[in-house]
């Protein structure tokens, strides 16, 4: 995504400017932006200096210290908002990424499957996203870095009406910005 790539470039430029003690804050608006090329997930971001190994060009975080992307989607059981024990390690790593990069923030989207009423699902989706927010805060992430939005059942990942689709739709997604 061009916008996210530009945003990550701005973040990098801003960080560089601060490190250099430079007074000017914004880059030249006329400065031509390099062509945003989609690089494979395993290639480190082309941005210079700062913390180049933390995110790819779309601001997706890497597993700290590696070039593997960190999973950003977490699934839930039917009618439940409990974090799966298997997901704690990945969430721990998101905590590390956020603590090490206090200039980025994360939007946590909560989603539900289509069963149940839409308004109750809007609340349930928020509860799921909130569980993840609370966990990240409990491991030292600043609450200022986190925002939560629930889409309830309105934005299914899979539009089919079966158990497999429902399992894919009961999720929370971390979106870095």
């Amino acid at each position, binding site marked *: 995504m061009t916008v996210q790539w530009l945003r990550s470039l701005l973040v990098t430029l801003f960080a560089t400017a601060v490190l250099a003690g430079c007074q000017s804050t914004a880059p030249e608006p006329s400065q031509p932006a390099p062509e945003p090329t989609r690089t494979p997930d395993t290639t480190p971001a082309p941005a210079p200096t700062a913390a180049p190994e933390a995110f790819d060009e779309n601001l997706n975080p890497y597993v700290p210290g590696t070039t593997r992307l960190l999973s950003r989607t977490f699934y839930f059981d039917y009618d439940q908002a409990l974090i799966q024990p298997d997901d704690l390690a990945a969430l721990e790593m998101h905590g590390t990424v956020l603590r090490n990069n206090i200039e980025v923030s994360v939007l946590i989207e909560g989603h539900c499957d*289509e*069963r*149940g*009423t*839409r*308004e*109750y699902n*809007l*609340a*349930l989706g*928020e*509860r799921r996203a*909130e569980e993840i927010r609370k966990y990240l805060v409990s491991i030292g992430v600043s609450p200022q870095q986190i925002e*939560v*939005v*629930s*889409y*309830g059942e*309105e*934005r*299914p*990942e*899979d*539009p*089919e*009406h079966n158990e497999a689709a429902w399992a894919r739709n009961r999720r929370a997604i971390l979106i870095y910005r």
Partner: protein
Amino acid sequence: MSSSCFVRLVALCGFLIIGAAHAEQSLDTIIIDAGYDKQTKIAIVPFRQGPEFSKEQPMAEIVSFDLARSGQFAPTNPDNMLSRPTTNTEVFFRDWRVLGVEYLVIGRTGVDSLGNLKVDYHLYDVFNEREMLSDSITTTRNKWRDAAHKVADEVFEAVTGIPGAFSTRIIYVLAMNAGSPDATYRLEMADADGERARTLFDSKEPILSASWSPDGKQVAYVSFETGRPAIVLQNVATGARELLTQFSGINSSPVFSPDGTRLAMVLSRDGNPEIYVMNLADRSLRRVTRNQVIDTEPSWDQDGRSLIYTSDRGGRPQIYRQDLTNNFVERLTFQGDYNARARMLPDGKHLIFVHRNNGIFHIAWQDLERDDVRVLTRTSLDESPSLAPNGSMLIYATQDQGRGILAVVSIDGRVKYRLPSSSGDVREPAWSPFLDTL
């Protein structure tokens, strides 16, 4: 067939497809699934239709379909009629008695001296050979269907004693490709029979929980157009919109009080979903619930003194009623582990709501005095029940062959019909109050 003829045929098909794309707004023709065993036999004789209205659907046809849809009437097929009177003097009751017809409707349409549509109609009780109704409607010429629905309303009330709700409208959400990058969501308004749909608002982001103001002039709904849920008020006639609330977290479930001065809603700005009431005059907010659980889907009792809402304070979603004067709370539903989104019937003694039974979601009805629960629907993933203003039927959202559609069921569960849609998923219906459509 010559090649030029073939080209012309293809061109014609292309034209028809374009025409169909424009017409896709209206819902498809209603499919009636069930009615009462004993239906009242009524004959609606084809009206004398002025030449100015030759392109309109015959008015008697619109009236007949309205009455048939109620499940209470069996209109006589015009082919079987022995005579086709359009004036009082042409009526011979024996022609109708031999057919077993109990009620007879005749009428004439034309243009008056001011250029307005004028409809004269009569209703007769065949067995007692008595005129029950003789009335005329004068309105602008573009209100042909409105005039027809008005005739159906009057006939329905004269025979059953219950006000007709055929001159009403529905609003609903039409979602295309939900969840995909090219998703669109439209808030649509159509006549109660699904005809004449038009778009009130469209967005790339979800729309839900539409509801009417009691005067029918405004609608409130939830829109994600800003990337977050916001409550929007929209004037139906002018289209003017106002983003009413945009607090952090959930802003949803807007429902007008019966007197239209307050709007119940759900906000999670203080950490989790709570019920609030906004005074629409000064936009002040009163918080109604205060706890760590989900409270949502508020609606009003018939006199506006209490709120009915869904809460999982007992571990599972159930329906509660809270008195707004003394804050006394009582739980209303006890059967099953998922009861939600309740609406109170106008008599204040019955509820309709979404009820989960063996994992399947249906619309249920409950007598509050006897705690008697009756499941009204047999479709699946049923939700969002909304009552007709006369309290006799409810419209709800369901699934049919993997697609979201609207369906209607009578309060006793006996009458059922579907409003299919040839495109997209249709959901979140809200039946209007009585409207002055003429």
